[in-house]
């Protein structure tokens, strides 16, 4: 289950275009893996700025069924230092494709109850297409290569490590 939105505001003259910054940096590309509940509002507040005409976000939440069986909860684990390196590689690629101001990725680990948020990605840009397309590219890239795993625990007592579906990253120009 996923939810995404974008919004615009217009506080700058129409000819204002921030420079295309292709360098990922921890100063404005935020990364967090945490066992605490995630907040979309808190994540988006990290990427908002007066130069941004758009903030786009993706929020991934845990589903309650798998093949008709009831899911009790999910357990996530991460290879955190490698996930961080890989993530900044993804952000670097996103910045080469899209004109971004700031980005954020928060991923939850440990137990995540059904219906709760497991991942948030948001990006800000001067114009909406960059932020929207970058968020799509970044969540697809995360699912392909970030070293994070989830185990699904079902109400029949079974548990299984999940595997993400095949994703064709080349669709992102």
């Amino acid at each position, binding site marked *: 289950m996923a939810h995404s939105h974008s919004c615009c505001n217009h506080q700058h003259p129409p000819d204002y275009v921030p420079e295309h910054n292709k360098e990922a940096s921890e100063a404005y590309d935020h990364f967090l893996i945490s066992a605490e509940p995630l907040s979309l509002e808190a994540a988006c507040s990290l990427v908002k700025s007066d130069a941004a005409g758009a903030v786009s976000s993706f929020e*991934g939440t845990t589903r309650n069924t798998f093949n008709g069986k009831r899911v009790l909860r999910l357990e996530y684990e991460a290879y955190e230092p*490698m996930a961080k390196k890989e993530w900044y590689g993804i952000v670097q690629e996103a910045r080469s494709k899209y004109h971004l101001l700031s980005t954020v990725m928060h991923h939850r680990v440990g137990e995540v109850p059904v219906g709760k948020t497991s991942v948030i990605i948001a990006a800000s840009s001067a114009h909406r297409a960059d932020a929207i397309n970058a968020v799509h590219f970044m969540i697809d890239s995360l699912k392909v290569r970030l070293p994070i795993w989830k185990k699904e625990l079902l109400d029949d007592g079974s548990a299984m490590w*999940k595997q993400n579906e095949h994703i064709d990253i080349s669709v992102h120009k």
Partner: protein
Amino acid sequence: MVSVKVLYFASARDAAKNLEYETVTLSEDTGPRMTSVVDAITRRHPGLAAVLQTAAFSHNQVYCSGDDLEDIQVKDGDEIGIIPPVSGG
């Protein structure tokens, strides 16, 4: 002797007696490769063989592709990750 730290995640950890990591000492005198590490951990944990068929590997926190493990030399203190198919998000 070359000792490396091997990290097991998800189904790989399940197959490795629930170990998060362990130190593996390789007996080769000259230039052990990633394949030596794979052989050593499969001997220790025979249940890993099935997991390794679909797993990726990392060498010092960078992915290595399955085809060239023979070409990747490992040094004392290196960190090797056993990375089953990922399911983040």
